[in-house]
C-alpha cells in the first residue's frame, strides 16, 4: 500500500537573534511569510488545523499560547494544539502535522515554532534554560544543559580520544555557514584557536561551543501531496518522520556517549522512507553544543561510534564536503530559539531542496534529514524530506 504523504508547500522564517519584536509579531511575521511563499497562493480558510511548538520561555502566556497563534495567524476557529518537548517542541509539532495529513484526517496543516528568549533578565534566563532537564537529580547536582553535554563530551573524549579540535571545528564550520544565512544570529567567522581559547563554560565546553539565546519564529505549511501539487510545482515531501524517547536524566541512560532517542527516531524515519542514508544530500542536526553535532553524526548512522571527529576534521561535513551538515549555520550560528529550532531545520530543507537557499545553496541536493533533540536527549525527532 502506498502511504499518503505530506509535503511542505510554504515556509516562513523570521530573522533569528536578539530582536525587539515580541512573540505576537514574531508569530505573525513567520506565518505571513509562509503564506506568501506558496507559489500559487493559499487561502487561510483552507488551514484545517495548526500545531504550535514552544516551551513558553520567560513564562509569557505560559498556558494556552495556541490561542495567540490562532489570533495572529487569523485561522478563524481551526483547532490549534501546543506541542512541548523542550528544544524538540517544533520537531514534534511538525511530526504531529505530518501525521494529521498522513492519516487522511487533514489536507492542509500549519506548523509553527516560536521562542522569545531575550525578554528575561540573565538570572531568569538561566532558570528557564534549566526547566527541561531532570530537575530532581541533575539540576540539584548543579547542572544546566551545558553541564550535561559537557559530561557526555568528557566521556566521548575519554572513550574515543575525540580531540577538542574536532569540537572546535563544528563551531568554525557552522559559523562559516551562518555567515551566508541572512536569518542567522551571527554573521562572523571564527577560527579553531578562538574556540579553544574562549572562556570555559563547563569543561571541556567553552563559550564558543555553546548555542546562543535567541528570539525567533518559523512557520511551515503542509498539505497532502495531492493538494500540494495544485499549490506549487515544487513541493517538498516528508518521506519519513520518526521520533524517540529516553530517560530524562543522563544517569539513567544506558550510554553516556550516544543518544538512544536519536537512534530510535532515525530507524523509524528510514523505515518509513523509500531511500537510505547514502541518498541523503545534507543534514540539519541539533548542535546545541558542539559535542551534540558529533553525537548526532554517530547516532544518525552517518559515522561509526567515535568516528564523527575524524569526519568533521576532514571537512566532510562542510558545505562543500561530501555530506554537508547544518548549511544554515545550525543552532550554533543561526541561533536556537528553543521551540522554533525544529521548524527552522525543516525550513532549510524546504529552501535547499527547492534550490532557493541563495548564497548557501548546496548544488543539486534532492534529499535532506533534519534532527531535533529535546533536553539532553530525552526526546528526539528525525524527519526525512525529498524533492518531488
Amino acid at each position: 500500500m502506498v502511504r499518503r504523504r505530506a509535503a511542505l508547500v510554504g515556509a516562513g522564517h523570521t530573522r533569528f537573534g536578539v530582536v525587539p519584536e515580541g512573540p505576537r509579531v514574531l508569530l505573525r511575521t513567520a506565518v505571513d511569510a509562509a503564506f506568501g511563499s506558496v507559489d500559487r497562493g493559499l487561502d487561510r480558510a483552507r488551514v484545517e488545523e495548526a500545531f504550535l511548538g514552544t516551551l513558553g520561555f520567560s513564562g509569557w502566556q505560559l498556558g494556552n499560547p495556541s490561542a495567540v497563534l490562532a489570533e495572529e495567524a487569523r485561522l478563524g476557529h481551526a483547532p490549534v494544539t501546543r506541542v512541548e518537548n523542550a528544544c524538540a517542541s517544533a520537531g514534534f509539532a511538525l511530526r504531529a502535522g505530518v501525521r494529521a495529513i498522513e492519516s487522511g484526517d487533514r489536507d492542509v496543516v500549519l506548523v509553527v515554532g516560536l521562542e522569545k528568549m531575550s525578554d528575561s533578565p540573565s538570572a531568569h534566563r538561566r532558570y528557564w534554560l534549566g526547566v527541561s532537564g531532570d530537575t530532581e537529580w541533575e539540576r540539584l547536582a548543579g547542572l544546566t544543559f551545558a553541564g550535561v553535554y559537557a559530561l557526555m563530551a568528557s566521556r566521548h573524549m575519554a572513550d574515543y580520544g575525540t580531540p577538542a579540535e574536532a569540537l572546535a571545528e563544528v563551531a568554525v564550520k557552522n559559523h562559516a555557514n551562518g555567515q551566508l544565512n541572512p536569518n542567522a544570529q551571527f554573521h562572523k567567522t571564527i577560527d579553531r584557536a578562538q574556540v579553544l581559547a574562549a572562556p570555559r563554560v563547563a569543561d571541556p565546553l567553552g563559550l564558543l561551543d555553546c548555542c546562543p539565546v535567541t528570539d525567533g519564529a518559523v512557520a511551515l505549511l503542509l498539505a497532502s501531496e495531492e493538494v500540494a501539487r495544485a499549490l506549487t510545482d515544487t513541493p517538498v515531501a516528508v518521506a519519513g518522520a520518526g521520533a524517540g524517547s529516553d530517560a530524562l536524566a543522563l544517569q539513567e541512560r544506558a550510554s553516556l556517549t550516544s543518544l538512544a532517542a536519536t537512534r530510535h527516531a532515525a530507524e523509524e524515519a528510514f523505515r518509513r522512507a523509500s531511500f537510505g542514508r547514502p541518498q541523503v544530500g545534507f543534514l540539519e542536526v541539533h548542535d546545541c553544543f558542539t559535542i551534540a553535532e558529533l553525537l548526532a553524526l554517530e547516532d544518525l548512522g552517518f559515522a561509526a561510534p567515535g568516528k564523527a571527529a575524524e569526519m568533521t576534521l576532514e571537512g566532510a561535513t562542510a558545505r562543500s564536503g561530501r555530506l554537508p551538515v547544518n548549511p544554515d549555520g545550525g543552532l550554533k550560528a543561526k541561533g536556537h530559539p528553543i521551540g522554533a529550532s525544529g521548524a527552522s531545520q525543516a525550513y532549510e530543507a524546504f529552501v535547499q531542496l527547492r534550490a532557493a537557499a541563495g548564497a548557501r545553496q548546496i548544488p543539486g541536493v534532492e534529499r535532506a534529514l533534519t534532527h531535533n533533540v529535546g533536553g539532553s536527549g530525552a526526546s528526539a525527532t528525525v524527519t526525512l524530506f525529498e524533492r518531488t
Partner: protein
Amino acid sequence: MPMAIVAAAVARPSARLGPLAVEAPDEDAFTLAMAAAEALGERARSSELARIDLVGDHAPEAEWAVPEALGLGGVAIHRTSGGPAHLFEAIRGHEGADPPGTRLLLAVDLSRVGRATGTNHGALAVALALGPGPGIRVDHVATHARSPRGETEGLRVDRLGRPHGSEPTALLILGDDERVVAAARTAGGPGFATSLVPRAPPGTGPAPTTPFALALRAPGVDDLPHPFVLAALGAERDVHVRGTVTGSVAWSEATPSPTLALSAPPVRDDERSLDARSEGAYVPRPRYIENLPSRWRLEADWCPSCSRLTFPARGACAHCGRTQELERRSLARSVWTVDAATIVRPGAQPTEFDGTVAVAGAYGVVVARSSEGPRATFQLVGPATPVPIGSRVVPVLRRLYPMEGEWRYGRKAIVVAASDAR
C-alpha cells in the same frame, strides 16, 4: 554492665577562615553530625540502636532528619542544647538505661556560635557509640560554678595563654599523671568542643593530628582498667569528669574534604533569606520528602524478577516494570567510580547555585557508578579541580540549596582517589 564509649568518630568542617576550621557554605550541624555518624559505620545504623542523643547546636529539625538519614525511623531521640557539661551528662544519662542496647550520641558545635561575642572557635562534630562493652566509662560528672582561677577540683587548667575571664575557655583532656594530652578551645554558651588544639605529652614528638584519638588513648592505657580525669570549662560552669578506660575504643574520622578558603565567616541562617535563591529547580516539598530515602540513604529498588537495581527508587523496576515485592537496598557509600566529569564555571550554574560559585568560583560535577551498578549525579565538594574518569568518589550529605524557607539536603561527593587515566 555499665555503659561505655565503645567507638568514636569525628568530622571536621571543610572550610578554613585563617587558622580556624569552619563550616563551608554547604555544611551545618546536620551535615557535620551525619558525617561523624557515617564515619562510625554500621554502629550508627544498627537495629540494636535504642536511642540517639543530640547534643549541642542541632536544629529542631534534626529530631526527624537524623533518624531519617540513618534509616532509623522510630528510634528514641533526645535533644539537648548546651555545652561540655551536657555532653558528659548525656553520657552519664545512659547508665542503667532501659532497655539495654547501643546508643548513639551526636555532639556538634558550630563556629558561628561564638560570633555574638566576637570570637570564632571553629566547628567540630563527634559521634560516640555507647554500649555495655569495654571502652571508656564515665563514672562521675560534677559541675561547679566557673572557677575564676581556672581550676576545678584541684586540677590546673591551661587557658591557652589567654587571660582569665575572657573567651575562649578550654576543654582539657588529661592523663592520670595530670599531663595535658589534648586541649580544645571552646567558647562560652552552647556548644561542646571545637578546634581541637592537640598537645603532645612532653618528649613525644610532634602534636598528633587526631586529638580525640589521643584523648581516648591516654597514657597508661595499656594497663586496664585505667582511670582518667577530665576537666571542661564552660562560660558559666566548669565540669569535672572522672572515668575509667576499660578497653580499646574504635576510632574513625569522616572522609576529609578538600579545603575551601573563606574570606569571611559563614553566614548565619538567621541572617540570610532562605528564599533568596529559590528561583530554580522547583521541587515541591512533598516530592523532596518522598525522595529522601534515595537522596539521603542512596536507596534503590531491587527487583526479584530481573535481579537488577533501579536508582533512584520510584516504586517500580525500570527494567521490567514490576511494582510488587521490590526490596529497598541502600547502595554502598564506599565505592563509586567516575564515569563522566565536568567543571561548571560561572554562568553555567543554575541560579540556586549562584552562592556556591560566588564562594568557590566553580564546582565539579560527576556522573558516578556505584559498585552495585546504578549511576548517580553528584556535585563535588570543595574547590573545582579536574577529575579524571575512573576516579573514586564517596557521597556525603551536604546542603544543596534553600527553598521555601528551609535548606534542602542531598548527596554531594568527595574525590578520594584520582584516576591516573587520562
